[in-house]
């Protein structure tokens, strides 16, 4: 069997990596899209992601059921989202600052509660081998698809449709675009934002469970290195569009997978610099998609960061 694919090997590894690594980006960015569409920023989703990863791993280890872990991760995320919403519902509290606080709190909680679970091995989520037809182990490895990824893709399409065409979507967008109009319609702005932030946190928690239960599939304190944060930045680049979130997540997944892919074929010298690729890419895309004069298309106008 041929195992040395040279440059193609890197490409396949990057594509496979993109599919594998993109899932947490996808969930966090979908959650953040929903929250921001309602007019609030939750910058704490990095903490939510880590908290979700820890709780999923702990529950999967203690009960033996990874899917129960996924559910608990979502609930933990929703809890952090509710906390964010509750503090932000108070008058004159800065939502961006609350996000930073929850980033620190979520990380701290996950690290201190998760200390006992660094050693044990929890059951992992199963995957579907879509690449079984291929003789190349690289292609087979690249096409090991996890159910959470598929669910995320469906969710992206569903959210796009729901935001554009349903009553609930309209309410969320109204609250995010014009508080006064929403109030005039008799909607509670705080309630809609609270629910949107809680659901956003739930999704980010699911993204975290993917990290600890599938890829990389372990729990430690270096598990997430800013993926939650980059996902928030990519929402801006995706112009608050769930389907575009999916494509950008794939791009980010590929950028993240570049370092390990090059390392696997012997390029080990600048490992850490390749590790910086996703952050640099995020910054470049952010610079590219921002504008000093006009408001970005699709940006909810009640959003504090788009003003």
């Amino acid at each position, binding site marked *: 069997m041929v195992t040395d694919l040279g440059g193609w090997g890197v490409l396949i590894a990057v594509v496979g990596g993109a599919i594998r690594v993109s899932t947490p980006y996808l969930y966090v960015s979908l959650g953040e899209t929903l929250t921001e569409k309602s007019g609030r920023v939750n*910058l704490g989703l990095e903490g939510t992601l880590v908290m979700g990863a820890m709780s999923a791993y702990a529950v999967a280890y203690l009960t033996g059921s990874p899917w129960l872990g996924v559910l608990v991760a979502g609930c933990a995320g929703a809890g952090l989202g509710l*906390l964010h919403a509750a*503090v932000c519902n*108070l*008058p*004159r*509290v*800065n939502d*961006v*600052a*609350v996000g*930073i*606080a*929850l980033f*620190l*709190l*979520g*990380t*701290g*909680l996950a*690290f*201190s509660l998760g*200390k006992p679970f660094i050693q044990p091995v929890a059951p992992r989520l199963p995957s579907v081998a879509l690449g079984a037809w291929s003789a190349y182990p690289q292609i087979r490895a690249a096409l090991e698809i996890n159910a959470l990824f598929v669910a995320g893709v469906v969710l992206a399409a569903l959210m796009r449709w729901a935001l554009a065409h349903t009553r609930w979507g309209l309410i969320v967008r109204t609250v995010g675009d014009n508080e006064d109009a929403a109030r005039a319609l008799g909607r509670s702005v705080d309630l809609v934002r609270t629910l949107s932030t809680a659901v956003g946190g739930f999704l980010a928690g699911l993204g975290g469970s993917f990290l600890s239960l599938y890829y990389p599939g372990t729990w430690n*304190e270096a598990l997430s*290195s*800013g993926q939650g*944060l*980059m996902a*928030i*930045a990519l929402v*801006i680049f995706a112009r608050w569009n769930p389907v575009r979130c999916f494509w950008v997540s794939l791009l980010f997944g590929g950028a993240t997978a570049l370092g390990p892919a090059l390392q696997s074929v012997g390029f080990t*010298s*600048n*490992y*850490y*610099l390749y*590790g*910086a690729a996703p*952050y*640099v890419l*995020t*910054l470049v895309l*952010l*610079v590219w998609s*921002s*504008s*000093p*004069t006009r408001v970005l298309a699709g940006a909810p106008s009640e959003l504090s*960061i788009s003003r």
Partner: protein
Amino acid sequence: MASWKSWAETATISAAALLATLALFGGFVALRGLRPLDVYAALFTGAFGSWFAIEETLTQSAPLMLTALCTALPARAGLLVIGGEGALVVGGLATVLAGVLLVDAPAPLAVIAMGAAGALAGGAWIGAAGALRHRRGVNETISTLLLNYIAIAVMNHLVTGPIRDYAQVLKPASWSIAEGFRIGDIPGTGIHWGLAVGVAAALLAYGLMRHTTFGFAVDILGGNVRAARMAGLPIGRMILTTCFMGGAAAGLAGTIEVAAVHGFASSSLAVGYGYTGILAAFLARQHPLAVAVVAILLGGISASGGLLQRRFGLPDAATLVLRGLLFVAVLAASTLYGRGRVFRRAA
């Protein structure tokens, strides 16, 4: 910064937030089967209970004062910068490079050059985020947070390759600066001179913000962008200057960590001083003098982490939980301003 009544209001609300935090943290440790009162006592002992503890607290507080200014100074112009961690790291790297390049220079000159290099590097780092904000409208909160990760990646790259000292075996570290270039302790104490640098920076920032036209203009910009534009203030220059000064302060913290603590750059630079500095800035309500006081309090929390770990087996991240709770409580309490009738000024 006006009357004693507004001081009293700030002090009361901050104390309430602190008490609420301690109550919540008490609940957190009680869940682990510990008695909250024992933990509070250990927190105090570890932070202020002995001369040794106080020395450790003040040593920890030095970089915090500087990284807090990195958030507090741009905040006065209405920006939310959270890049202290990255500015500290690039400041530390620049310090090492300056120290190694100037190996033959006389010590006082070299130390000044190292400080200048650290401040310049940190200032340029955050100044770049300020420029992106002004020229391109890039959100400064997200860009500075990304710059943190980029700075750490650059440092990891440099200390594992180009400037690695292979004699360091414990973990990858850069070349060391000459022994004569190290900043020593304040005579008669175990506290290094970094504390004096931190306090001086806070005083300087206070003087600049409170007693100069520039500071007044920055407060107008932070209060109302449109008013600042109508008044014809040079908004871009003010954003750049406050960002540069904030970044320079955090860069100096990197200089101190290298020149007074480690002697080289390694991952020990990125241990969260930048993030705790954000908390310090918010706890001080972005006031440069209050930053110095609050940094000592937060330095105490860091200093007592070891004792909590040894005595109760609490994980080291427990102090992170305490800081996170404090942050949430402080922000939640910010809703209380202007509510207490006692603090209202007589009309």
